[in-house]
């Protein structure tokens, strides 16, 4: 039986675990730990190959699962099985149930008539209430970390095969920087993702990222994102004053 590789977005290791439990139609009060642990670890492998970023908590839960699995495998002499003998899964199940209840609560909150999504109140002229300022979706100026995350997303979507081609083309960082600046002067603004078009070679891809980071450092460009997961735009930095 082959595993269907579908990469859902998980809100953390517990979320992943709940997903696996649901997918396998498992009774949460009687989890087959060996099966779940194997599937969980498989998922971690997939996540690792496609996405460079794996929060430490995923590994913590992995070791917890392995530990519980080992506990379940230990032989328990019949005579010692008593009322208060702990099911090694007990703590994990409690944690899962607790997390699940808050997840439910979150979904429930989301079903309400939410302000600025389903219902609206009277609009106020900008600047007259601090509320209006705080809420506005302003384009966020990106930090280096945001950009690296976006970069990870870009390369994860690229055809993996292209990484293996070794082309002799020599391209320097300075060349790439100039290329980008020229494009920018002509086009006024560029979309981050477009910079990677047709560039399958690993070196070219990395040089492009380095070029953008260098230009950011030199304050020759500004990089904006319209809200989380929005399109990333690169603009020429405008000189202030003078």
């Amino acid at each position, binding site marked *: 039986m082959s595993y269907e590789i579908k990469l859902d*977005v998980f*809100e*953390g*290791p*517990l*979320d992943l675990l709940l997903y696996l439990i649901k997918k396998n139609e498992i009774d949460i009060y009687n989890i087959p730990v060996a099966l779940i642990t194997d599937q969980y670890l498989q998922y971690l492998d997939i996540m690792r190959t496609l996405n460079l970023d794996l*929060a430490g*908590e995923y590994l913590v*839960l992995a070791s917890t699962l392995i530990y519980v699995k080992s506990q379940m495998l230990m032989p328990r002499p019949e005579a010692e099985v008593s009322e208060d003998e702990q099911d090694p899964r007990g703590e994990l199940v409690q*944690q899962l149930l*607790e*997390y699940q*209840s*808050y*997840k*439910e*609560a*979150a979904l*429930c*909150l*989301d079903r*309400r*008539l*939410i*302000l*600025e*999504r*389903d*219902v*609206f*109140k*009277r*609009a*106020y002229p900008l600047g007259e*209430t601090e*509320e209006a300022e*705080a*809420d*506005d*979706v302003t384009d966020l100026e990106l930090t280096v970390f945001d950009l690296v995350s976006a970069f990870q997303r870009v390369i994860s979507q690229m055809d993996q095969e292209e990484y293996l081609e070794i082309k002799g083309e020599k391209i320097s960082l300075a060349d790439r920087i100039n290329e980008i600046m020229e494009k920018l002067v002509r086009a006024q603004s560029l979309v981050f993702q477009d910079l990677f078009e047709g560039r399958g070679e690993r070196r070219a891809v990395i040089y492009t990222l380095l070029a953008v980071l260098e230009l950011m450092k030199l304050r020759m460009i500004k990089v904006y994102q319209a*809200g*989380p997961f929005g399109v990333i735009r690169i603009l020429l930095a405008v000189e202030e004053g003078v």
Partner: protein
Amino acid sequence: MDDLKSILEALVFASETPLTVDKIADVVGSPDKKEIERQLKGMMEEYRQRGGGICLQEVAGGFQFRTRGDLGPWIKKLKVLRSQLAPATLETLSVIAYRQPVLKSDVDRIRGVDAGGALKKLLEKKMVRIMGRKDVPGKPMIYGTTNKFLEVFDLKDLSELPTLQELKELKD
């Protein structure tokens, strides 16, 4: 009495945040809060019966005019949609809403991940606030939800949140 009703209507309309009966009593100079509340509830019913696009709602401990729930799609065509909360942020918010006053470490534990990013976003959006510090080593901060949270999620007050038990029963 018609006079008072008109004044109340105008006040609620002009207010930037849900207007409380107490605040109204202050402005109007009347000690009779029961009467004010009665008038407002009557107005709520009037607007409901009118069946128009505007409703008078009781949220966050006060009263506020809002568009009717099913007309959302129309207003969205008019306005630029504001960014919605990501699932992780919403989950963090629900933990805080139900467990307040709560420490970040508790939130981290329940969610199984570091809630720092989500917490920061919630603070920025003023859905969550720092209520103080716990008097233990490290003096960790204590978090709770704000009135803005109630306003955004159409809640009169925290007691309107369905209990976790109720949610569970709904599911089963």
